[in-house]
C-alpha cells in the first residue's frame, strides 16, 4: 500500500504545483488592490485591479476591436518569423558560408532600436499593416532563428556519422537526427517569440496606425484614462500568454520523448 500512498502524494503535489502560478498571479492582484486602497493611490497614478476590471468590462467592445487588429498583425508576423527563421537557420546550418555572412547582420538587426526608426519605417513602408508585421518579424525572428541554429548544432556528430554510413542522404539525416535534436531549442525560441509577438505589434502600431491596441493605449493615456491603459495591458498580457500556451501544447504533442523523459525519475506514474 506504500506505493499507492506514494502515488497519491505525488498527484496531490502536482495538483498543487499546477495551480501555483494562478495562485501567485492571484495574490499579486490582491496585493495590488490592497496597496491601492490602503495608500489611496489616485487612479491616474495606479488604478486598482477592480477598477481596471470594471473599465475593461465597460469598454470591452472597443478594446476587442482593437485587439483583433493587433492580434492579426502579431500572428501574421509570428508565422512569417517562424517560416523565415526556420528557413534561415536551416540554410545557415547547411552552408557555413551563408552563416558567416548572415549571422552578423542578424545580430545587428537586433541592436537597432526600432522606435528610433519609426518615421523612416513609415516613410519606407507606408502606414498600412506592413510595417507592423515587419516590427513583429524583427522582434520574433531572432530568437527563433538563433535557438534553432543552436539546436541544429547540438546533434550528436556520431549519430550523424552513423546515418551517413547507413547511406542516408542529407534530407534523411536532417529529418531523423538533426531536426529532432533541434526541436526542444526550436520550441523554446518559438515560446520566446510568442511572448514578444503581441508586444511587437503594439510597438509597430506606435510607429503610426489608425487602430490597434498600441493606438488605443496612447489615446487612453493622453486622456488620462490610466484605468483603460491598464485594461489594454491586461489584454496584451492575456493574449500573449494565450499564444505562449498554444505553442506549449503543440510542443507537448510534437516532442513526446521529452514528456517521457520528464517522468524519468518517477518509477510510479
Amino acid at each position, binding site marked *: 500500500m506504500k506505493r499507492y500512498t506514494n502515488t497519491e502524494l505525488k498527484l496531490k503535489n502536482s495538483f498543487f504545483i499546477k495551480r501555483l502560478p494562478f495562485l501567485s498571479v492571484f495574490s499579486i492582484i490582491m496585493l495590488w488592490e490592497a496597496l491601492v486602497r490602503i495608500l489611496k493611490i489616485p487612479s491616474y497614478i495606479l488604478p486598482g485591479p477592480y477598477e481596471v476590471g470594471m473599465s475593461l468590462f465597460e469598454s470591452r467592445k472597443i478594446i476587442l476591436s482593437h485587439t483583433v487588429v493587433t492580434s492579426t498583425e502579431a500572428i501574421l508576423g509570428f508565422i512569417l518569423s517562424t517560416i523565415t527563421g526556420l528557413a534561415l537557420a536551416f540554410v545557415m546550418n547547411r552552408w557555413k558560408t551563408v552563416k558567416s555572412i548572415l549571422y552578423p547582420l542578424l545580430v545587428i538587426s537586433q541592436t537597432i532600436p526600432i522606435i528610433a526608426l519609426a518615421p523612416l519605417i513609415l516613410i519606407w513602408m507606408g502606414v498600412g499593416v506592413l510595417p507592423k508585421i515587419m516590427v513583429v518579424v524583427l522582434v520574433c525572428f531572432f530568437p527563433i532563428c538563433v535557438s534553432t541554429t543552436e539546436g541544429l548544432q547540438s546533434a550528436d556528430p556520431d549519430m550523424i556519422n552513423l546515418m551517413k554510413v547507413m547511406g542516408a542522404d542529407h534530407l534523411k539525416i536532417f529529418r531523423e537526427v538533426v531536426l529532432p535534436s533541434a526541436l526542444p531549442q526550436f520550441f523554446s525560441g518559438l515560446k520566446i517569440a510568442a511572448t514578444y509577438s503581441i508586444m511587437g505589434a503594439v510597438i509597430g502600431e506606435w510607429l503610426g496606425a489608425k487602430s490597434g491596441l498600441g493606438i488605443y493605449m496612447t489615446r487612453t493615456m493622453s486622456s488620462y*484614462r490610466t484605468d483603460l491603459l491598464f485594461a489594454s495591458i491586461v489584454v496584451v498580457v492575456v493574449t500573449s500568454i494565450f499564444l505562449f500556451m498554444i505553442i506549449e501544447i503543440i510542443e507537448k504533442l510534437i516532442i513526446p520523448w521529452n514528456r517521457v523523459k520528464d517522468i524519468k525519475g518517477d518509477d510510479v506514474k
Partner: protein
Amino acid sequence: STNQNKDGGTGQDTKTPDKIIFTLDWAPNTNHTGIYAAKAKGFFEEEGLDVEIIQPGQNTADQLVASGNAQFGIGYQEGVTLARLEGLPIVSIAAVIQHNTSAFAAPKSKNINTPKDFEGKKYAGWGSPIEEATLKALMDKYNADINEVTILTTGATDFFATTEKDADFAWIYYGWDGIASKIKNKPISYIMLKDEDKALDYYTPVITAGEKTISENPDLVKRFLRAAAKGYDYAAQNPEGAANILLSNAPELDSALVIESQKWLSPKYKDDAPVWGLQKKEVWEEYTKWLYDRKLIDEMLDVDKAFTNDFLPEK
C-alpha cells in the same frame, strides 16, 4: 486615378473615391475636430475622398507628408519652417487656429509666473530644437539664463504625467491641457506665447501638404480643403455636435474635457479671419525674422513657398 469631381456636390458618380491618408500630430484632440467632423458628416465623401486618419509616433507627421506617404497632415508653423530649411518639401496649406493658443505652463505650486522663473527649473518637451530656442528667446528678454534650465525630453507624454514627478513646466495648448487643468481641478499658471511677443502669435497647428501633391494634384488639395473647411465650420458652429463626433472616433477620451475644450476652441478656429484657414504673410515673415534675429536659424525662410492660401475655398 484622379477624380475630377469638381462640382463639390454630391459625388454620386460611379468613380471610386481617391484614397487619402491624413496624419495627426498627436493623440486625437480638439485641434483635429474639423477633420473628424468632415469625415463623419460625409464632407470628404462628397468630394470623392476616402480619408484614412492615422496617428503616427512622435515627430513623424512632417516626414510622412514630405515623403508623400500621407497626402496631408497636421503640422506647426515652426515645424514647417525648420523642415523646409532642412530640405523637406512640405507646405502649410491652412491654419487650423488663427492665433497661437500655446503656452508654457506649470502646476500652480511651482510658482512659475514669468520666463524669469524658468531658471533652476526642469522643462519637459518632445525634443524639437525649437523648444530650447523659444525658451532662450523668452528668457533673454527677461535677462534670465537658459543654461539654468534643465531640458528633459519626454516625447508625447502628457502635461500632467510629466509634471507629476521630475519636470516643472511644459509647453501646452491651452485649449487642451489648460482646459483639462480646470476639469481635473489642478490649477496651473501659464504664460501664453502670443502675449510675450507679437511675432510669436504664429500659426499652430496648421494643415500641411507635400509639394509633390500640390504640384501634381492641385485639384485634390482643393477638394480636401473644401471638405476640411466645412468640417471646421461645422465644429465652429456646433461645439457639442463636434465634440461628440470626436468622442465617437476616440471613445476613450474624457468626454467632459472634450466638450469643454471644444466649447473653448470652437470660436477660435476662424476667429478674426474672413475664412477659416487663411494665413497672413506677415505672420510667417515676422516669425522667420524673429527666429533669424535671435540666431535661432541660419537663413531666412522663403515664406512664399512655405505656405499658401491658393487652395482655400473662396467665400
